[in-house]
Each structure stands twice: as C-alpha cells, then as structure tokens.
C-alpha cells in the first residue's frame, strides 16, 4: 500500500480531475438520437434521389441521384446500427448483471451439493 498522506493527496487529485457529465447527456442517448436521425434521413435521401433521377434525362444528374440514394442507404444502415446499439446497451447491462447473479446462485448450488467447501475443483 502506498504512503498514507500520499494516497490521500492522490485521491484528492483524482477526484479533482474527474470529468463529470450530466447523465442525461450520456453517450447511449446521443447514439440513439443519431441513430434516429440516420433512420429518418436515409429514406428522405432515397426519395430525393428518386425525384432527382426522374426529373432529368441528363445521365450525369442521374448518376448524382444514384450517389444520393447510396448515401441515404448508408445513413439508414448506420443509423439502424447506432439505434440498436444505444437502445440495447442498457438492457444488456442488466442482462449481464443477471447472468453474474445466476452464475453466483449456480455456484452456491454446486457448493451446497458437494457439501464441503474445502474440496477442490480441478481447475486450470
């Protein structure tokens, strides 16, 4: 263990250096918002591309419309991925906590079934 006063000073310094953020502006929420924006923007780009391509006979402009359409598709796919990631993050955290708890309960059951906590499992 490090020297007491040194550790206390280190603690004070670490607390002073903490980056505090408002939980309401967390990354998960930001990702969900970006995802929703991407999901909305994607189809809009697609519709815009359709109108551009049908509003002209100029092949150069039609190719531009293809690019706009592909951009819309990219926005939609990336937006969907961000939305799913952000929306599932909280759920998965609880899922992980539950998994750890269930493993703990299972280990307790095994220990109880063996009837002797001193016996060793063949590990590693």
């Amino acid at each position, binding site marked *: *263990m*490090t020297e*007491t*006063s040194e*550790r*206390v000073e*280190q*603690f*004070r310094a*670490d*607390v*002073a250096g*903490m*980056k*505090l*953020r*408002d*939980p309401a502006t967390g990354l998960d929420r930001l990702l969900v918002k970006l995802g929703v924006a991407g999901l909305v923007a994607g189809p809009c780009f697609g519709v815009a591309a359709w109108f551009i391509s049908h509003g002209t006979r100029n092949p150069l402009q039609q190719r531009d419309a293809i690019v706009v359409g592909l951009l819309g598709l990219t926005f939609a796919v990336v937006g969907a991925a961000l939305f799913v990631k952000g929306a599932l993050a909280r759920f998965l955290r609880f899922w992980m906590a539950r998994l*750890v708890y269930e*493993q*703990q309960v*299972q*280990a*307790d059951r*095994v*220990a109880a079934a*063996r009837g002797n*906590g*001193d*016996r*060793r*499992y063949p*590990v*590693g």
Partner: protein
Amino acid sequence: MSRAAQPLVELRGVRAAYGPIEVLRGVDLTLGAGEVLAVLGPNGAGKTTLLNVLAGLHPLAGGDVILAGRRVNAASATARARAGLCLIPEGRGVFPNLTVRENLRMAAGIARGRRRAAVEEAAYDRFPKLRDRRRQLAGTLSGGEQQMLALARGLATDPAVLVLDELSMGLAPLVVEQLYGQVAGMARAGVSVLVVEQFARVVMGVADRAALLVQGRVAAVGLPGEIESKLSSAYLGG
C-alpha cells in the same frame, strides 16, 4: 476549511428512493482521512442504499455526495472507483466461477502501478488461507474465505476510502474477529473506512465514530460508546 481538515467523504442531505418508496430522507455524514465510521441500524434502515449511493450505484433523489471537497453527484461508479473509493458489497462480491487467483488478478488489473504477482503475494501474506486455495473456484470457498478474498481484492486496488457492507454477515465470530482485525490494520495504515453493520458489537471496537441510521435518517452520531447505549431503543423501537 483547510485541506487536511477537509473530510474525504461528505454526504449532505442525501435522499434516495426505490420508485415511490423513499429510503434515505436527508442523510448527513462525514468521513475524515484515516477514520473508521460505523453506520449502524436495524434491518431496512437504508444502510446498504446509503453505501450504493456513495459508490454511485444508486441514483440520488436529492442532496450531494462530496468527495475530497468536490461535488461528484454526476460521477459514475467507475470514476469513483478509479479515484480510490472501493465498495465491498454485502454477499462478498467475488466472481464465483473464477479461481481465487483469477479473482485477485482481476483486481490487480485496476491496481495502480502494481504488478499482478505483487498484488497476489500481498493478498496471500494478508490472508495465508487464500494461498492454499488459490486454484479453487471462489464460489466453493467457505463464507469467511470468500469475505477474505473480497477484502483482499478491495485492498489490491490500493483504496483511499474503503466501504464495507455487512462484513460479518453469516460468518462465525472467530472469522469476523479476524476480518475486523484486518480492517483495523487498514485504518492504522491510513485508509478511511466506512462500515455498515447490523450487528453493532463487532464493529464498535474498531470504529472511531458511529452513526445510527433509523428509517432513512441519522438518529445519532458520536463515539461508539455513546451510540451503543442508544442501539437497543433503535432496534426495538422503544
């Protein structure tokens, strides 16, 4: 207030709730550097919730959590742990499906500049029983050994503030005595300790001050001897 006199931990009017049920109703407490503060109270008084709020695991409904003079209400549990606030939860908090050695190595992963082997050795020196059990799954250890492992893991992180929840729960008196001997040793080494206990007697010999928590409020704070005399009325509702 000078920096030396400034408490490392300060709770100001802390409120917390589970849905509509208010559990903490304006708790004020301080913990100085190198001090051992025992928080006592009957079942359901809000002791564990208080620790979870301090560690950042339960949201505040009101009030402030102040570490080293800085309001850290918005700091995550991870940030508080990285700074040196270590919570050993009720129910031991070890990974049951990992061996003793693996549990220690996981703690060593966040230890400041210490090699894994050094962390392991320090843990085994402190709790020699763990050395014999190092290849055993943590979930198959006895309750006392699991608590030793939890304590060893906590110490491996070189905490500045150690927060202990019901260290004695379900353990034989001899084991409890041994564990509190270690806690006293840590306090002598300068670690600030906040310990929550339902069974007051075991912690009174170690604590510098004690606080009595009843129905989410601090009913009394003082020297352990002073608080001990108020315990029976708090527990029995007299």
